């Protein structure tokens, strides 16, 4: 698998960049002044990682749980799916000195439609949360915090300097992880 993909954002140059990650994209930054932001998280999940020793931060915004849903898309845009995207996020972070054992990982998103509960045919959010947790657990990564579920849309800002994740909905700050 490629390292930073065509779809991933390049490592930032200079100080204090705001890196905006779209759906099916990821970004990893080693510049402490950077903030990685992603908008419009509904049923999608943002996986945020931060290594305090090297102060590298990474954020993946995936849409669907499994690459097998569309293998061609997974090859072209691995960050679309939880399994291929999380693997790529960690590989990209390792290349910048991140150690899995030190990683602080947080999950945000996975909202569900009010009328659709459980694992229904159209319930993407719950499937996404479960898949992300399963992949991380199987790989020995502890999830340090979550702001998941419910029906609210979320925007995430991850600070590379201290790994703080701010989650907002509209103009309201809903969580600081």
């Amino acid at each position, binding site marked *: 698998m490629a390292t930073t993909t065509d779809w991933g954002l390049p490592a930032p140059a200079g100080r204090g960049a705001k890196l905006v990650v779209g759906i099916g994209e990821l970004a990893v930054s080693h510049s402490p002044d950077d903030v990685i932001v992603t908008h419009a998280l*509904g049923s999608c999940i943002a996986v945020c990682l931060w290594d305090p020793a090297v102060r590298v931060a990474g954020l993946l915004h995936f849409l669907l749980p499994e690459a097998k*849903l569309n293998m061609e898309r997974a090859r072209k845009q691995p960050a679309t799916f939880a399994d291929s995207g999380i693997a790529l996020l960690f590989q990209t972070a390792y290349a910048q000195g991140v150690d899995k054992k030190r990683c602080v990982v947080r999950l945000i998103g996975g909202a569900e439609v009010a*009328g659709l509960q459980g694992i229904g045919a159209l319930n993407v959010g719950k499937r996404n949360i479960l898949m992300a947790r399963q992949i991380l657990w199987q790989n020995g990564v502890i999830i340090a915090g979550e702001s998941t579920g419910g029906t609210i*849309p979320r925007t995430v800002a991850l600070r590379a300097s201290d790994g703080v994740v701010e989650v907002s909905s*509209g103009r309201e700050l809903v969580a600081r992880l």
Partner: protein
Amino acid sequence: MSTLSSIKRALPADIVRGITTLAPLPATAHRLMALLRGDDESLTSIAALLESDQGLVASLLRRANSARYMAQPARNALEAVMRVGTVSVLDMVVQEHLRSLITPAPTYGLDENDLWLHGAASQLAARAIRTERPQLKIPSTADTAALLHDIGKLIISRYLKVDAREVTAYANEHEVTWSEAERCLIGFDHTIIGAVVAEHWKFPDDVALAIRHHHDAETTHDSRLLDTVMAANLVAKMVGCGLGAEGLNFGVSATIHERLSLDFDVFAKICLTTQDGIRDLTQQQAAT
């Protein structure tokens, strides 16, 4: 749609005025709808009417000559209409018209582009659902209904000053959907207003019905067009288009996947197709 007429009588004067003064649909749209109804209309005369709008003709030719149609290039509006089909042209005419009307909808936490993209994504999703489920013979006007399904948000935002945070707070406090909160706070919701707009613009009854009930989780209407619009709205939200303040706090029939024969794999495929379409659309936007 007599119920809509009675609803209209009960609406605040500002809202009614907002609907009745909304720029009328172009004549081309009405004539295309007449043609679709089987009225005595000529494609040649409609094409001639289209020729008067150079921007639209350019879009039409671009679509007709895209790789999807793989044939000799269409040279004029008539050839293009014959290539892409009457419904696609109607979609384009309505899309252009809607685009000219779109303004931010702060009541819903949506900026101008959000509202537009949500309609466009829903339209793409409706088309993808129809493509995936040809056996259901879903009317192609589902695409148009999906495009227009949130037009009521535009009217409400223009004529009522309601704070999105107030609606969200009410919905959270009373554990109701956003539409229910709208109805409790202002007496009606965007689906009602949208249906009145559709009626005012003389869209077919099934289009107005789909707009009216697209958040009605308990709907008993047996309409694949309505089901498609409901699912298309869901897909648009899944791909992050137009989440706004409502987010995913809206009603959806719990059995919609059965009526549309959608399992998760097909639904995921529709989401990906829609996301691709939105990417193409935004790239086109950026290029123009």
